[in-house]
C-alpha cells in the first residue's frame, strides 16, 4: 500500500486559484488571472497524470485486480454514531480516470480561454469560477462518502450557474442560468431523498461500507431495505431510482434535459468544460460509483437503461433540426450521455457481463476529449463570425485550417469511424447492448447513424457550403487557442488505443476484448452512409434540406421545437405553480391568516370603542363616578355586608 495523500493537491490547487482570484482578482490580477489559473491547473494535471501512472502501472494492481484505496478520510460532520459526512479521497480505476479527464480538459479550457476571453471586464472572476468548478468536480470524483458526492454535486451546480450567467447583463443568460440551477436542483431533491433512504437502512453514508452492506444478500441491512417497500417497490428500488433521478438531472437525461441546450448561453469554453466533458457526466459517474448496489436491483437498472436509450434517440432526432451550432452540440452531448447510461444499464457487476460498465466508462473517457474539442472548435468559429447560427457560417475551411482539421477529427470520432477514439468505445457499447437487449441495440444503432448525419451536417455547413462571407480580416485566434485544439485532436486520435478494458472494469479484473470486424460492419457501414447523405445535402448549398423539411411538415416543426418540452415546463411553472399554488398561498397569508390577526385586533378596538364613551375626558364626570362608587360601597358595607 503506497501513499496517495499527495492527490489532495489536485483539487486544492484549483481551490487556491479560486480563493486567490475571487478575493483579490479584481484588484490585483486583472491581467495575470489567466496565467495564474492555467498554472495551477497545469500543476494539477501533472500530479493527476503522475497519480494515474502510479495507480495503473506501478502499484494499483493486487492479485490481478485493481483495488480501492482510501487515501485520506476525515469526519467532517458527524450526525449520529456511524452516520457522518466524511471528506476523503478514494482511489480506484474510475476516480483516477476521472481525475485525469477533469484536470486535463480543464487545463485545455483554461488555456483556450486565455485567448477567447481576452479583454473581458471580469476576466479574473471568470478564472476564479473556473477554479471553483474544477475544484468541485475533482472533489466529486474523489468522494468517499455519498454525502460528500452530494456536497460537491451542489457545488458544481452552483459553479455551472455562475458560469452560465457569466454574461449577467444578458437576460437570456440569466434565465438560462436560473433554469439550469433549478432543474438540476429539482433532480437533486430526488438524490437527497435517495441518500436519506440508503443512509437510514444501511446505517452509514460511507460508500464502500454501504456497498459492502447492501451487496451481500444475507446482511440484515440488505434484508431490511428489500423487505421495506412503498407503492409496490422495495425501498432499495426507490432509493436507487431517486439517486438516478439526481444523476439524470445533472446528466441531462429525459425529461430533465431541458436546461442543457439553454446552458449554451455561457461562454463557449465553459460549455466545453462543464456541459460537455465533465459536469454532465457526473450522473454517469454517480451510477458507476454506486454500480455494485445498482446491480443488485433489476428494476433500477431497467430504468437506467430505458431512460438512457430514449434520451439518446430523442436528442439525436432533435439535433438534426437545430440551427444553433452550440445547441446541436448540446443535444449531441445529451445523446452520447444516453449511450453511457444505457451501457451501464445493460451491464452486470462481474466478469464478461461487466462489458457495459467498461464500455460506458470508456465512452465517457473518449467523449470528454472529442466533445470538448468540438466545443472549443465551435468557440473558435464563434469567435470569428460572432454568431451561433449555422446560416452565418460557411466556407470557413480556408480561413481557419487548424480548426477545420480539428473539427473534422472530432466529427469522425463522434460518428464512430475507425480508427478514431469514438469508434472503439461506441463499438463496445453496441456489443454490450447486443448481448443483453436487442431493442436497445437497434435504438443505439439508429442513433449512431443519426449522430453521424447531424455532426456532418454541422461540419459541412460550417466549413463548406457557400463561400465565406468573411474575408481574412480576422485571424483564427491566438496561439493559446490553437494549442489546445491541436493537443485535443491528437488525443482524439490516440486515446482509442488505450487498453481500457485492462484498466477500468466493474470488478477491477482485466477484461478481454477484441474488435470483431463482422460486428463492426453494421454500425460503421450505416455511419458512412449517413455521412454521405450529409455530404450530398450540405456540401453545396442547395434546396435539398429545405425540401425534406417541408415534406416532413408538422413533424419537423415539432422536432425543431424540441417536442415542446420547454413549453410544457413553462406551462407547468407559469400557469400552474405560480398562479395556482404561489398566488393563492400569498393571498391566503395576507388575507386569511393575517386577516384573522387583524380581525382579532379590530374586535378589540370595537369593544374598546363601545366602552370608551365612559371616559369622556370630563374631570367632573369622573368625580361623579367616583362619588357614586364610594356611596355604593358605603351602602354595601353598612347595610348589606354588615
Amino acid at each position, binding site marked *: 500500500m503506497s501513499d496517495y495523500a499527495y492527490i489532495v493537491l489536485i483539487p486544492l490547487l484549483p481551490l487556491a486559484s479560486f480563493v486567490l482570484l475571487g478575493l483579490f482578482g479584481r484588484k490585483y490580477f486583472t491581467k495575470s488571472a489567466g496565467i495564474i489559473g492555467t498554472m495551477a491547473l497545469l500543476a494539477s494535471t501533472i500530479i493527476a497524470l503522475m497519480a494515474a501512472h502510479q495507480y495503473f502501472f506501478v502499484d494499483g494492481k493486487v492479485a490481478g485486480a485493481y483495488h480501492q484505496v482510501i487515501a485520506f478520510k476525515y469526519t467532517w460532520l458527524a450526525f*449520529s454514531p456511524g452516520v457522518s459526512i466524511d471528506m476523503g479521497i478514494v482511489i480506484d480505476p474510475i476516480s483516477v480516470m476521472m481525475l485525469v479527464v477533469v484536470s486535463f480538459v480543464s487545463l485545455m479550457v483554461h488555456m483556450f480561454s486565455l485567448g477567447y476571453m481576452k479583454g473581458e471586464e471580469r476576466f479574473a472572476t471568470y478564472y476564479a469560477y473556473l477554479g471553483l468548478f474544477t475544484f468541485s468536480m475533482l472533489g466529486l470524483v474523489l468522494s468517499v462518502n455519498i454525502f460528500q458526492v452530494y456536497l460537491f454535486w*451542489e457545488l458544481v451546480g*452552483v459553479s455551472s450557474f455562475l458560469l452560465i450567467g457569466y454574461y*449577467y447583463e444578458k437576460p437570456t443568460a440569466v434565465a438560462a442560468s436560473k433554469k439550469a*440551477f433549478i432543474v438540476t436542483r*429539482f433532480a437533486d431533491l430526488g438524490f*437527497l*431523498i435517495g441518500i436519506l433512504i440508503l443512509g437510514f437502512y444501511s446505517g452509514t453514508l460511507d460508500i464502500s461500507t454501504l456497498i459492502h452492506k447492501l451487496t451481500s444478500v444475507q446482511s440484515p441491512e440488505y434484508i431490511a431495505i428489500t423487505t421495506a417497500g412503498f407503492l409496490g417497490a422495495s425501498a432499495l428500488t426507490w432509493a436507487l431510482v431517486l439517486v438516478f433521478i439526481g444523476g439524470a438531472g445533472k446528466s441531462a437525461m429525459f425529461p430533465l434535459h431541458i436546461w442543457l441546450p439553454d446552458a449554451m448561453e455561457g461562454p463557449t469554453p465553459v460549455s466545453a468544460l462543464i456541459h460537455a466533458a465533465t459536469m454532465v457526466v457526473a450522473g454517469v459517474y454517480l451510477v458507476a460509483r454506486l454500480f455494485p448496489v445498482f446491480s443488485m436491483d433489476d428494476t433500477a437498472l431497467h430504468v437506467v437503461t430505458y431512460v438512457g436509450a430514449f434520451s439518446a434517440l430523442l436528442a439525436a432526432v432533435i439535433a438534426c433540426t437545430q440551427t444553433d451550432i452550440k445547441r446541436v452540440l448540446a443535444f449531441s452531448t445529451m445523446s452520447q450521455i444516453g449511450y453511457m447510461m444505457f451501457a451501464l444499464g445493460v451491464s452486470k457487476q462481474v466478469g464478461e457481463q461487466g462489458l457495459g460498465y467498461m464500455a460506458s466508462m470508456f465512452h465517457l473517457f473518449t467523449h470528454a476529449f472529442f466533445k470538448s474539442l468540438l466545443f472549443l472548435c465551435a468557440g473558435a468559429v464563434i469567435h470569428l463570425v460572432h454568431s451561433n447560427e449555422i446560416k452565418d457560417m460557411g466556407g470557413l475551411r480556408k480561413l481557419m485550417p487548424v480548426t477545420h482539421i480539428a473539427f473534422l477529427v472530432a466529427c469522425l470520432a463522434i460518428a464512430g469511424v475507425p480508427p478514431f477514439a469514438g469508434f472503439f468505445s461506441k463499438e463496445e457499447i453496441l456489443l454490450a447492448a447486443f448481448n443483453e437487449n436487442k431493442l436497445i441495440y437497434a435504438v443505439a444503432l439508429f442513433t449512431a447513424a443519426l449522430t453521424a448525419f447531424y455532426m456532418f451536417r454541422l461540419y459541412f455547413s460550417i466549413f463548406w457550403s457557400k463561400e465565406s462571407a468573411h474575408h481574412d480580416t480576422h485571424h483564427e485566434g491566438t496561439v493559446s487557442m490553437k494549442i489546445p485544439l491541436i493537443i485535443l485532436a491528437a488525443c482524439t486520435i490516440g486515446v482509442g488505443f488505450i487498453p481500457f478494458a485492462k484498466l477500468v472494469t466493474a470488478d477491477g479484473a482485466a477484461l478481454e476484448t477484441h474488435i470483431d470486424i463482422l460486428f463492426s460492419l453494421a454500425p460503421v457501414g450505416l455511419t458512412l452512409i449517413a455521412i454521405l447523405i450529409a455530404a450530398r445535402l450540405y456540401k453545396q448549398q442547395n434546396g435539398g434540406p429545405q425540401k425534406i423539411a417541408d415534406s416532413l411538415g408538422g413533424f419537423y416543426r415539432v422536432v425543431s421545437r424540441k417536442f415542446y418540452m420547454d413549453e410544457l415546463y413553462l406551462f407547468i411553472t407559469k400557469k400552474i405553480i405560480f398562479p395556482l399554488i*404561489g398566488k393563492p398561498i400569498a393571498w391566503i397569508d395576507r388575507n386569511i391568516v393575517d386577516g384573522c*390577526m387583524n380581525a382579532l385586533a379590530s374586535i378589540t378596538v370595537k369593544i374598546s370603542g363601545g366602552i370608551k364613551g365612559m371616559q369622556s375626558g370630563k374631570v367632573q364626570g369622573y368625580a361623579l363616578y367616583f362619588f357614586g362608587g364610594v356611596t355604593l360601597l358605603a351602602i354595601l358595607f353598612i347595610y348589606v355586608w354588615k
Partner: protein
Amino acid sequence: MNLSLLILFPLVTAIILLFCNGLKQVRMVALAGAGLQLILAIFLLVAFLQDRSMGNQLTMLFEYDFVWFKNLPIHYHIGVDGISIAMILLTSCIVFAGILISWTMEKLSKEFFFLLVLLSMGAYGFFISLDLFTLFFFLEIAVIPKFLLIGVWGSGKKEYSAMKLALMLMAGSALVFVGLLGVYYQTGSFDMMKIAQMNIPLDTQYFFFPFVFLGFGIFAALFPFHTWVPDGHASAPTAASMFLAGISMKLGGYGCLRVATFLMPAAAHYYSPIIIVLATIAIIYGAFATMMQTDLKYINAYSSVSHCGFVILGIGMLTQTSIKGAVLQMVSHGLMTALFFAAIGMIYTRTHTRMVAQLGGLLKVMPFISTVFVIAGLCSLGLPGFSGFVAEMTVFMGSWQNPGGLYRLATILSCASIVVTAVYILRATGKTIMGPLDGAYSKLGDALWNEKLAAGLLITGIVLIGVAPFLINQLIGPGTAAMMEQIGKTINLK
C-alpha cells in the same frame, strides 16, 4: 469567567450612551461596547472549551446562583452549555454588525443605539438564564425596544407594524408566563435544572406545554402566528431587522427547546405530530409565499418563516440529530438572514427602493454588495460551503431517523422546499443583481468600510460553519447530547 459580565457590559454601554452627544460620539461608544461584547463572547468560548477539555463534564458551566427574591424562590441563576454559547456568539456577531450597518443613523442616534444595546442585553440575559423567572424577565427586556425601534425609526406603515409585532410578541410572552406559572405551582421551583430532574406529572405537562411552546413559537414564527414577521421586518430599519430576525426569532427557538421541550419532554412527544404538521406547513407555505413577493424585505421575511420552520421541525422530531440540526439552523439562519438584511439595507440606502421589479444589474455598479447578496442567497438555498447546508442536512438526517409515516412525509415535503427556495432566491438574484442595469443607478457607489466590515464578519461566520462544521459540532454536540439524555430518561425514544 463571570457570566454576569455579559449583562453588565451592555448595561454600562447603555448608561454611557445616555451621556453622549452627537452621532460620532454615540456610535463610537456603541461600537466599542459591541466590540467588547464580541471579545467577551469569544473569550467565553475559549474558556468553555478549555474547561471542557480539562474534563469538566457538568451540564452547565460557569454557574452562578443568587437569591433574587426570597419569598418566591426566584433566583438569579445563570450558566451556559454549548448551545447557549453558540447563541451568545451569534448575538454578539449580529450586534456588532448591526451597529456598523447603522453607522450613519442621523435621526435620534443616541436613543437608537441605546435601544439596540438594551435589546442585546435582554438577549444575552435570556440565553444565560437557568431560572425561569429570570429568563422571562430578560425576554421582556428584549421585546420592548423592538416596538420603539420600528415605531420611531421604521419606514412604510411603521406604526401598524410596530403595534402588530409588539402585541403578538406580548401575547406570546403572556402565554409563556402562564405556562411558567403552571410549571412553578406544580414543582415549587423556578430552577430549570431542578425541574428537569423532577418529572412533572403528565396531565400538568399536557396542559401547560402548549402554552409555553405556542408562546415561544410566536417568537419563532410558528405557523399561523407568523404574520408579525413580514410586516415587522419590512418596516424596521436595517439594524432592527437584523436583530429581529437574527436574535429575536432565535429567542423563540431557544425557548421552545430549552424550556418547553427540555422541561416537559413527555408532552413534547405527545404533541409532536401537531408540531411537525405546523412546522411543515410553515416551511412549504412560507417558501411558496416568498415566491410571490415583490419587495426584497418581504422576500427575506417570508423566507425566514420558512427557514425557522426547520428549527421547529428539528425540535418536533425529537431525535438527537434533529435537535442538533435545529440549533445549527438557529445559528446559521441568524447569521445568514442578518447578512441578507444588511445587503438589502445597503441596496436600499443607495437606490431608495426595495422593489425587485425596479432594480436590475446592480453587479455592475456595486460588486461588493451584490456579492454579499448572492452569498446570503446561496446560503439561504443551502449551498455547501455555507452554514445553511450543514444545518439543513442535519435537520433532514435527524428527521429521517424518526420512522413514522407522518414524519417521513413531513421530511420529504421539507426537503422539497429546497427547490422552492432555489426558485425564489434565483428569481430575486436574477432580477436585482443580474440583468441590464437601469441608467438611473449607474452612478451609485459600492459599500463603505463599515458595511464591508459588517458583511465580512457575518460571512466569516457563515463560511466557518459551512467549511468546518466539525468545530461547531464540538460545541453544540455535547450540549444536545446531554439534553437528549435528560429527555430520553423521561420518555422512551429510540
